[in-house]
């Protein structure tokens, strides 16, 4: 018995010494000048995270990111956040294992399994899936943060040249069957309210009385989705990636509580490059999502969006400017009637990092949108939204 205890102790010591742990975190507080209209996060048709006018102090969010390098090839990663914009929730943004053995050739492969973001966003590479450039991500990456997540496994193959690197990723996943619902029910948003396992996404009240929330990361039916992503990167030139996503959901499948699966597929194209101190990021997305609530009745929403971001790397100061366009087009709801939305947004942000642990951000977001759904609520289809934020972010 004593011998067993000694052996177990020795194993624990060895395991502990063989592991590398790291912890990163942030907490964000804000002063917000909000648009007058009620935000979609509160059931309204406002396209920004905050609404109802006035100047408000807000808790922007907090997250803890932990990693464990279990072996030189095996990494465990977890990202847990706390949000209280809609309801106070603690949810898991990502939790996965990554196996990447070293390769002494130009080829290298990686296997990743668990819950993680599909490789779409070129903005959100900071702690807690935030953006180092702006507080509010683009419409494309706002939606990625709201409804897209992989629960499955991804294989990655890289070929690493002296200048050019090519990377092919493909994944199989489940539990992303409701993805696309919010684009049909609400349209695009520009919001840094990211959702994870354990949170619920709110639909506009006009679409569902009483208040309806749903888990965007659930399995409805037994279909397995996939994505493929081809990426090229050249040192000193930039990168381009093209992705195809298809959740392959049965559009007539639904839960007992009435949450439908949405068949969603899209193309995503992204590119980055640097010119002097300026980093350029461009992304475009086009796809559609469909649901069949009744036999022979199929509602389809086509969606597209694109943005261009310029960010200046000026040491402690990082200004950024982003322009974007977004639209949706609904068909099948009423013969001969075209519904949907189109709009543009411009985001200007100034980031200041006086210390490694401190970030200040001032951001101005202006959205012009025309959405037919607003007429159903007795509102003018055309609306403008201006949101200003001053953020203090503590980093660990």
């Amino acid at each position, binding site marked *: 018995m004593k011998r067993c205890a000694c052996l177990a102790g020795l194993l624990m010591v060895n395991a502990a010494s063989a592991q590398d742990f790291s912890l990163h975190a942030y907490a964000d507080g804000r002063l917000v000048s909000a648009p007058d209209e009620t935000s979609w996060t509160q059931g309204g048709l406002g396209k920004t995270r905050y609404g109802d006018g006035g100047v408000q102090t807000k808790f922007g969010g907090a997250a803890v990111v932990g990693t464990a390098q279990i072996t030189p090839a095996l990494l465990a990663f977890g990202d847990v956040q706390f949000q209280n914009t809609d309801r106070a929730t603690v949810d898991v943004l990502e939790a996965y294992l990554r196996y990447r053995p070293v390769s*002494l050739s130009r080829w290298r492969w990686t296997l990743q399994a668990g819950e993680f973001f599909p490789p779409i966003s070129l903005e959100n590479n900071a702690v807690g899936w935030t953006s180092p450039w702006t507080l509010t991500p683009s419409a494309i990456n706002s939606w990625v943060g709201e409804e897209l997540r992989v629960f499955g496994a991804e294989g990655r193959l890289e070929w690493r040249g002296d200048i050019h690197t090519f990377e092919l990723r493909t994944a199989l996943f489940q539990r992303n069957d409701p993805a696309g619902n919010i684009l049909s029910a609400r349209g695009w948003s520009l919001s840094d309210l990211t959702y994870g396992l354990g949170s619920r996404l709110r639909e506009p009240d006009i679409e569902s009385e009483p208040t309806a929330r749903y888990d965007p990361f659930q399995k409805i039916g037994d279909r397995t989705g996939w994505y493929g992503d081809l990426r090229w990167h050249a040192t000193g030139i930039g990168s381009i990636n093209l992705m195809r996503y298809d959740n392959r959901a049965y559009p007539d499948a639904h839960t007992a509580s009435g949450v439908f699966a949405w068949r969603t597929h899209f193309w995503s194209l992204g590119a980055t490059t640097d010119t002097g101190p300026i980093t350029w990021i461009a992304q475009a997305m086009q796809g559609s999502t469909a649901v069949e609530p009744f036999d022979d009745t199929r509602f389809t929403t086509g969606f597209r969006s694109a943005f261009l971001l310029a960010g200046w790397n000026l040491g402690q100061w990082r200004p950024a400017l982003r322009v974007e366009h977004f639209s949706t087009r609904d068909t099948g709801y009423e013969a001969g009637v075209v519904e949907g939305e189109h709009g543009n947004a411009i985001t200007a942000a100034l980031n200041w990092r006086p210390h*490694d642990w401190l970030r200040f951000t001032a951001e101005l977001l202006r959205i012009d949108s025309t959405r037919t759904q607003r007429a159903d609520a007795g509102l003018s289809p055309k609306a403008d939204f201006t949101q200003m934020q001053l953020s203090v972010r503590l980093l660990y």
Partner: protein
Amino acid sequence: MQRLAVMACVLFGCASPAWAAKVDVHLTDGHGHGVDDAVITLTPDGTVDRAANAPPPATHVVDQKDEVFIPYVQVMRPGDKVVFRNSDSTRHHVYSFSKVKAFEFVLSPGESSPAMTVVNTGIAAVGCNIHDHMITYLFVSDAPAIAMSTHGGMATLDHLAAGRYTMHIWHPQLHPGKSETTRAVIIASDVDVQHVAIDLSLIPDPRMFMDREHLDY
């Protein structure tokens, strides 16, 4: 320490200490800023018996601190040895798949690799398989005279004999695919002092420096 020292290894100097000519090089980036970590080699026109003038092998140390390799570029001679030291509190998995030398070392915090001899000439990119943003270069050359720019783009190649030379300049951030910068240098006498100023056009530093906000997993 090697980074701070101007590494001028002059084979002709060994053979004839009387040669005292030198070339002072100042490298800038086109905006007036000095360019460090560039490797400058001088090769005399005509044939040179490089092996006959080889200096004794040296051992170099490449450190890893705050998930950054130090130095960014390590100049080596064929036959020199290199030791990879881990001064971080996390493990590193140092490796290279270059033709110059393929190798891997898993290094625990505080650990150093065995001294590894590099025989072939060329440039070996070295990374960490755990932290993909880390990179350093081993520049292995048997050129008769070699130096690395430090202290704001300054380098000196000394103990040179009179003659015609070709100067080659390499930097990790030269535009990919663009031909190496070269310059003809004529040394009139064994006590001549030449001053060479060159603007280099560089791409942004590809190394990602991690901080509390930026993660790279």
